[in-house]
């Protein structure tokens, strides 16, 4: 957390503590809801790597989310559980491999073209899965039993237990955060940031920018696959909409509204968007209207997202210009 003001760091630690203690007060529903939010937070952080740090705006990130989910479905035998220790790495590898292949194809484009071609891939998967009988098609498919964690006869935890699942997801979210933090603080991360600011300059300095972008794309894809895997594991249901542009749009919203270029921004974005939606949906059936207005307002008023707003409030006189670099 180098570079974050002390006040922000304290807030983040408080947030983590709150999440750790949350299950004590929460009932089953909120436990599951927060698990879902944290899964989306992992998804959002992976997109932030692309959007906020590397400057690659992808509108098709749901591709890898869906791949992670469907991999679990394919690896789960009909009435038995898949092994977590086997299926999770496989899902990550599948997502990463797909990201590698797709990345090689799409990273030659930039700007709007890049946005559209990433969207194109997610749409292709969507249509392919919708039409595929084996994958369940538009009705979706079930994962009848959650992955189990038995190793040498001992199961350290049960994913079917809501509490265990919550802490498992929380742990993965923290691990993702730390992993990305370490990555971005390393020379690799600095190069990535440099590419976002000015790719030509980086290239003229001798960096093979394509490879760096590809690496970022693959890592982001793998993490999105992780999120998709967890999402499928949570309710045991997958369907082609996981590849849809709506999923990609929602997670992009979380990243931007939460605040790009920080890692806690997407986490904040996930919490705010989902909770706001829960609140609004209870008020009116036309809740998309205030939601849309909120998004528009946020774009106009909060250029740095909610994390930017938090930092401005908490960090009384600090010059935020430094963060843009």
């Amino acid at each position, binding site marked *: 957390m180098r570079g974050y003001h002390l006040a922000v760091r304290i807030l983040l630690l408080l947030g983590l503590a709150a999440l750790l203690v949350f299950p004590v007060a929460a009932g089953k529903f909120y436990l599951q809801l927060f698990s879902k939010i944290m899964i989306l937070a992992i998804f959002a952080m992976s997109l932030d790597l692309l959007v906020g740090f590397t400057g690659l705006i992808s509108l098709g990130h749901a591709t890898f989310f869906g791949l992670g989910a469907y991999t679990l479905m394919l690896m789960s035998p009909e009435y038995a559980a898949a092994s977590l220790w086997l299926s999770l790495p496989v899902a990550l590898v599948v997502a990463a491999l797909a990201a590698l292949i797709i990345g090689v194809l*799409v990273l030659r484009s930039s*700007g709007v073209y890049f946005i559209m071609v990433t969207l*194109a*891939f997610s749409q292709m998967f969507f249509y392919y899965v919708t039409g595929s009988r084996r994958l369940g098609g538009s009705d979706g498919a079930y994962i009848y039993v959650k992955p189990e964690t038995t190793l040498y006869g001992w199961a350290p935890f049960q994913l079917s237990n809501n509490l265990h699942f919550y802490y498992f997801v929380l742990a993965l979210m923290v691990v993702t955060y730390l992993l990305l933090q370490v990555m971005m603080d390393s020379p690799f991360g600095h190069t990535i940031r440099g590419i976002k600011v000015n790719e030509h300059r980086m290239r003229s300095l001798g960096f093979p920018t394509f490879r760096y972008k590809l690496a970022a794309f693959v890592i982001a894809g793998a993490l999105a696959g992780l999120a998709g895997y967890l999402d499928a594991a949570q309710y045991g249901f997958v369907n082609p909409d996981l590849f849809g*542009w709506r999923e990609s749009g929602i997670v992009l919203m979380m990243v931007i509204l939460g605040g790009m270029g920080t890692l806690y921004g997407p986490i904040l974005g996930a919490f705010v968007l989902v909770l706001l939606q829960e609140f609004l949906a209870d008020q009116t059936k036309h809740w998309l209207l205030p939601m849309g207005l909120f*998004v528009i307002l946020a774009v106009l008023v909060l250029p740095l997202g909610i994390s930017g707003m938090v930092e401005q409030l908490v960090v009384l006189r600090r010059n935020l210009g430094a963060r843009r670099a």
Partner: protein
Amino acid sequence: MSDKVIFFLIQVLNGVQYGLLLFLLASGLTLIFGVMRIINLAHGSFYMLGAYLAFSFAERTGNLWLAMLIAIPLTVLIGLVLEAALFRFLYHRDHLYQVLLTYGLILVFEEVRSILFGDEVHGVKVPAFLDFSLRLTPTLSYPVYRLFISAVCIGVGAGLYMFINYTRVGMSVRAGALNREMVQSLGIDIGLIYRLVFALGVALAAFAGMIAAPVASVFPGMGNQILIISFVVVVIGGIGSVKGAFIGSLLIGLADTFGQVFAREISGITLYFLMVLVLLWRPEGLFGRAT
């Protein structure tokens, strides 16, 4: 001519006709993006707006042309208001914020539509004097209204082309697309150009919705699917290029049609596949400039 050839030609006609309709929508999108550098995800919402207005006014007046006459200026007005209230703040912002803001706009449009017009599917009657079909084979006829739409699209396309390339205003528009600062320093109000282009783009989208309403039906979410396809067209053709939008839409129209005929199982994927291929060959689209 043998039966097979006749049907092949008819399929070509189908593809061209679909492509021309796409062109109407894509042209507005490519202009807005090419000149104003704004990604407008709400473009499909203007298409939907046009269709619903046409439906609503046509029901009341019983005449589609009259409805269009009222609805087009109305949509242009709405477009200009939105430009002044929202889009103006996006000119200097990152694409990301444009995507986000216009995404929020889609949500708002959908809900307003739901509140004002409800959620049912509506039909619009084809204007009486165009409501007949030409017999092409013993079994198949071609609805004349579709041919009419195609003719209108070609006309609009030609008009756009003339406007952009052969008028003073068009020249300013082209200049504004290339270098806005220079245009401003030459004393031309770039803000006015932007407003003009935006109004034009919105009008084209709404007009597409209106004229297609008799064949497309009017229903919730109708803008979303066609939005994605228009983006594909714009990207293939090259951003900012009306000529590219024209070629791109014809390509997509034909690809989609023949994809359905020959590769039925993967027909949903055809146009995305095509886009990926084009971008692999030409990363800026067929007629686009490197942005």
